[in-house]
């Protein structure tokens, strides 16, 4: 039989339903891939092979009876910030090493309800704070892709780097991920995969280790736009356990795929041109516009004037929320506790100095600073006002366009260690993605071309709140036109 691990999620689900192969067979094939690749790629922090086989056999039993959900028997990888009942969940941090949640996140519970199989927990930047996976306490994930003849290890992006590398390297059919400033879409762009961040409130945050609560949203990383539509539907639900969960229907987004984009108005924001953006990324963006125009869409130049202020605002708001959210790690009830503290304050401070890595400490310090007396109005409140300006930019164009097309990232994947010198340079990775988080809008990254070194580049589609249908429709047209079929050459 052909290699089952190369199937798309859709093809695998269909094959399982038709009983062409069993869930146990495809699960074993992925376990073999993980065992062979993980020492090199470091995508999984915790493979859960025994649990996977138990879940696969249970799925096979349901399939044998003609039962089963929309993802029945499909082996997935889970980013290690989704709490999984009885399975260690660390968010990539030493603070949570050994933490075993006694409950399940709503997103993963929805996937198991629909029949999916868990292959293991995926590596990530510590508490999702990073754009290269280098802040993980478990070491960086290595991108399956290489540039040209160079053998240098590249980053798969972050913070969902483990998810993106695992999907690109055929270590799972698809993976869960999360996006606070671009952490689904940037790694997807760096690995030739599809990543979707839905409208804020579509996917429950219950049981997802918090970074910045007003921005965090779960979504899938997959091989195709169709897979993303399929998996996102399972992940989303109204959840009374999340106070910001939206009480709305979850549509069947696969219905939007392949639908003509004729007559759709696609906005091209003139502010999404940044200094130092490679010519290839510019050309790809222009190509994307040409593809959509040929498919009958109308290309409209638009202005989102506050775009350049999105990242600086984000680097106040996200650290501020993080400094509040991560106050819970005090060494008392769960997580790491320092030994031999001299006082209560010393116990807190030593516990947090030992448990948190450098980038997390840096952001918590910024967060405490911008929230502190005397600076709260100048930094935090001002950033919240700028955030509204950014959201209004989008509100002002929705009368003229149905969706917006941008590059996903300012560059292709870069080498490990390359951008660690200066935090601001690293932060610029999210310049095109962060606006959708601040405004709560859905966004997708679709692989659309290669740079001259043969590395994948992505295009992003941003849509109106709750209008993932149009986002998927445009993404599907881009995918068809781009005909992106490249895969990384196996070296691991």
């Amino acid at each position: 039989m052909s290699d089952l691990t190369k199937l798309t999620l859709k093809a695998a689900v269909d094959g399982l339903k038709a009983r062409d192969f069993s869930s146990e067979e495809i699960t074993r094939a992925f376990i073999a891939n993980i065992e062979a690749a993980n020492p090199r790629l470091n995508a999984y922090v915790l493979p859960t092979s025994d649990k996977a086989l138990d879940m696969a056999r249970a799925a096979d039993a349901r399939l044998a009876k003609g039962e089963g959900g929309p993802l029945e028997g499909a082996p997935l990888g889970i980013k290690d910030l989704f709490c999984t009942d009885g399975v260690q969940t660390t968010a990539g941090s030493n603070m949570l090493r050994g933490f075993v949640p006694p409950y399940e996140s709503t997103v993963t519970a929805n996937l198991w309800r629909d029949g999916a199989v868990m292959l293991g927990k995926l590596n990530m930047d510590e508490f999702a704070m990073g754009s290269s996976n280098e802040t993980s306490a478990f070491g960086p994930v290595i991108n399956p892709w290489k540039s040209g003849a160079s053998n240098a290890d590249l980053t798969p992006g972050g913070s969902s780097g483990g998810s993106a590398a695992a999907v690109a390297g055929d270590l799972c059919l698809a993976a869960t991920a999360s996006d606070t400033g671009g952490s689904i879409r940037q790694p997807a762009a760096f690995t030739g995969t599809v990543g979707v961040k839905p409208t804020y409130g579509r996917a429950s945050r219950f049981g997802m280790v918090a970074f910045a609560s007003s921005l965090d949203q779960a979504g899938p990383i997959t091989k195709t736009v169709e897979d993303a539509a399929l998996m996102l539907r399972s992940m989303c639900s109204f959840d009374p356990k999340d106070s910001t969960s939206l009480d709305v229907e979850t549509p069947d987004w696969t219905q939007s795929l392949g639908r003509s984009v004729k007559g759709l108005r696609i906005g091209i924001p003139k502010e999404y041109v940044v200094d130092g953006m490679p010519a290839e990324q510019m050309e790809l963006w222009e190509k994307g516009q040409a593809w959509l125009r040929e498919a009958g869409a109308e290309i409209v130049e638009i202005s989102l004037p506050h775009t350049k202020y999105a990242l600086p605002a984000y680097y106040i708001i996200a650290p501020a929320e993080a400094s509040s959210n991560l106050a819970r790690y005090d060494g008392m009830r769960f997580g790491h506790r320092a030994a031999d503290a001299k006082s209560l304050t010393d116990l807190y401070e030593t516990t947090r100095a030992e448990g948190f890595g450098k980038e997390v400490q840096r952001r918590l310090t910024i967060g405490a600073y911008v929230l502190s007396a005397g600076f709260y109005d100048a930094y935090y409140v001002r950033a919240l006002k700028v955030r509204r300006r950014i959201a209004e930019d989008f509100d002002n164009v929705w009368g003229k366009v149905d969706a917006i097309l941008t590059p996903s990232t300012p560059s292709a994947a870069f080498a490990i260690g390359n951008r660690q010198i200066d935090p601001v340079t690293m932060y610029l990775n999210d310049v095109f993605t962060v606006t959708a988080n601040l405004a709560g809008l859905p966004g997708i990254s679709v692989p659309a071309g290669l740079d001259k070194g043969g590395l994948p580049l992505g295009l992003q589609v941003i849509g109106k709140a709750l209008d993932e249908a149009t986002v998927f429709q445009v993404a599907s047209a881009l995918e068809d036109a781009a005909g992106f079929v490249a895969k990384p050459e196996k070296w691991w």
Partner: protein
Amino acid sequence: MAVDVATVRRVAHLARIKTPEGRLEPLAQELNGILAWIEQLNEVDVEGVEPMTSNVHQPLRLRDDVVTDGNKVADVLSNAPKSADGFFVVPKVVE
């Protein structure tokens, strides 16, 4: 607004992160780099703009004030660094 070593020491304490003296100066430089970049927000006219704290345009839901969960002492304590007799055990601290 340049951040000096004394400010970093104070903020690190507010964040409850023990920061060795030798780390304060480099951290001040990093923060100054980030804050200098953030200063550009001062260019934006925010006169009369309401601060935006949430993307969700719906009022917070209310539910009936009834017990929906509980009696999970073992679960609650299952990740405690130390526990005994149904309680968290914390180090003895006399200050």
